[in-house]
């Protein structure tokens, strides 16, 4: 196996006949017409082949790997899973996370009293999710987070909390390589929610 150096072939020099207008137009139109009719027939058969997405009405189908805005996992008891260890704050390259820890009587003992993410600086890099030892901050599929005032881009804890069952696809994606026995599987979660 090896690489070789080859000289690319140049098409022959232009002849007068090549530059004749009508012929050229026909040749170009054949290509575009092919696309047009392919799309048209597919449309008539109800199977879209054009690449354009009619955005607000239609959304893109994202793969589960998609990294959108980071959010906090909210457990079924309504509290966050975060233990305010501060690793995500360290790992964030642009320092957009601010955490003020506090103590709680729960078994996790610590929780973030304040957990702010400055979304105008966040670049959706995913380091916070990778650093978190608790699976408490994950990348959601939300991307439409524009605001009309700059204060609106500072997200507080109550805005960031997302119920765990809504984050199931992502949690399942990041748990591909391992099991987490103390965390209920998505099926169990759904079951428990139904019982409630």
């Amino acid at each position: 196996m090896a690489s070789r150096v080859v000289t690319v072939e140049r098409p022959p020099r232009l002849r007068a006949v090549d530059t004749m207008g009508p012929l050229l137009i026909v040749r170009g139109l054949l290509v575009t017409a092919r696309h047009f009719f392919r799309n048209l027939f597919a449309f008539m058969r109800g199977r879209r082949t054009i690449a354009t997405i009619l955005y607000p009405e239609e959304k893109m189908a994202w793969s589960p790997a998609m990294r959108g805005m980071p959010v906090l996992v909210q457990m079924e008891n309504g509290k966050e899973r975060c233990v305010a260890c501060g690793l995500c704050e360290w790992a964030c390259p642009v320092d957009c996370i601010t955490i003020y820890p506090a103590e709680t009587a729960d078994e996790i003992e610590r929780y973030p009293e304040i957990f702010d993410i400055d979304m105008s600086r966040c670049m959706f890099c995913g380091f916070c999710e990778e650093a978190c030892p608790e699976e408490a901050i994950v990348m959601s599929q939300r991307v439409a987070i524009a605001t009309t005032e700059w204060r609106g881009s500072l997200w507080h804890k109550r805005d960031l909390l997302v119920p765990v069952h809504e984050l199931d696809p992502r949690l399942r994606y990041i748990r591909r390589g391992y099991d987490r026995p103390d965390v209920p599987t998505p099926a169990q979660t759904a079951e428990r929610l139904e019982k409630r």
Partner: protein
Amino acid sequence: MDAGPTNPSLTNDLHTQPMEIQMGPSHPSTHGTVKITLKLDGERILDSEVEVGYLHRGFEKECESGEWYQAIPYTDRLNYASPMINNVGYCLAAEKLFGVEAPPRAQYLRTIASELSRMADHFTCIGASALELAALTPFLYCVQAREQIYDLHESLCGARVTTNYVRIGGLQSDLQPGFAELCREKVAAALTLFGDVDELLTKNPIFRERMEGTGTLPADALIAYGVTGPLLRAAGVGFDVRRAEPYLVYDRLDFEVPVGSRGDNYDRYLVRFEELRQSARIIEQALRDLPDGPVDLDDPRFRWPAKGKVFNRMEELIDQFKLVTEGMRPPAGEVYQAVEGANGELGFYLVSNGTGKPWKCRCRAPSFSNTQALRDMIQGALLADVVPTFDMVNMIGGECDR
């Protein structure tokens, strides 16, 4: 070259003087933020000055103030048309400095990622060139083809452009199931679209007349300017870092390095064109040979431990805390590692003083040296030749200005 008007009797009667015009910084027919000050006599370029720096963001200063791993997302933003190659280049340089090597599966996946990015970059370059020469349809097809590649980026790492995929000692994540089929399908779809671009552009006389014979510079002048990549190969020099100094698994793959014969813009276009096909071949071979195994180095000094262990075991939890807060600590020293970027030799020069932060993180950007040669390429040419030449130089602002 005679720069004046051709009819001498005209010059005697008319008082003419060179005209200075500014092209850019955001000119509709240049796909980069650059200012070209042209001194014109009629339509002929007497002299020009290229000014860059409009996209300067302080890449090096930013890298020096973070941990080693925190520079990776910034490298995405260097050449944003081919982000994976920058990730790979930086991580290879860091691994050389640390003295580690990623597992074979990671090497193959990095190769696939690099070639996907190279395809995306060439699609952008060719599509934008066609657009700037007033051909809208090839641009749309190219962008559609690029979207196929971005779908694969998304499947690999979750982001379409700002990938942040490669890690020092591994990768962000392993493949999703079914990636190989998806990859073959999307690359084939992209190449089919590109076949249409080929039909529309390659033999098109208007396109050829604007590309042929323009922007030529002899090979030794290009080398003296530090020009690399498709530009240099179009002039007949078969220098490709993938072949000359194989990194990753390129020495195990079978591919061709296309070179041109005349070194004009048309050759540059053809070389890029052929490289696209070769990239597809490389991806196919790498997918075929892709070994099983881990994608991450199992070494708590360099790579964050696997999440499953962090959750269930004490040592790994401590490792995780130490690695995130202190960063990995390479030995003191300096390395330079070059990879073949989409526009030429992309090098990273890293200096470490033994702490968790880079002392110096320098990126040798191919676009920077390539843009420098633009002045000589358009000297004495017509004003209309600036556009195809600039297109084929393919200056990417994010990389040129860092």
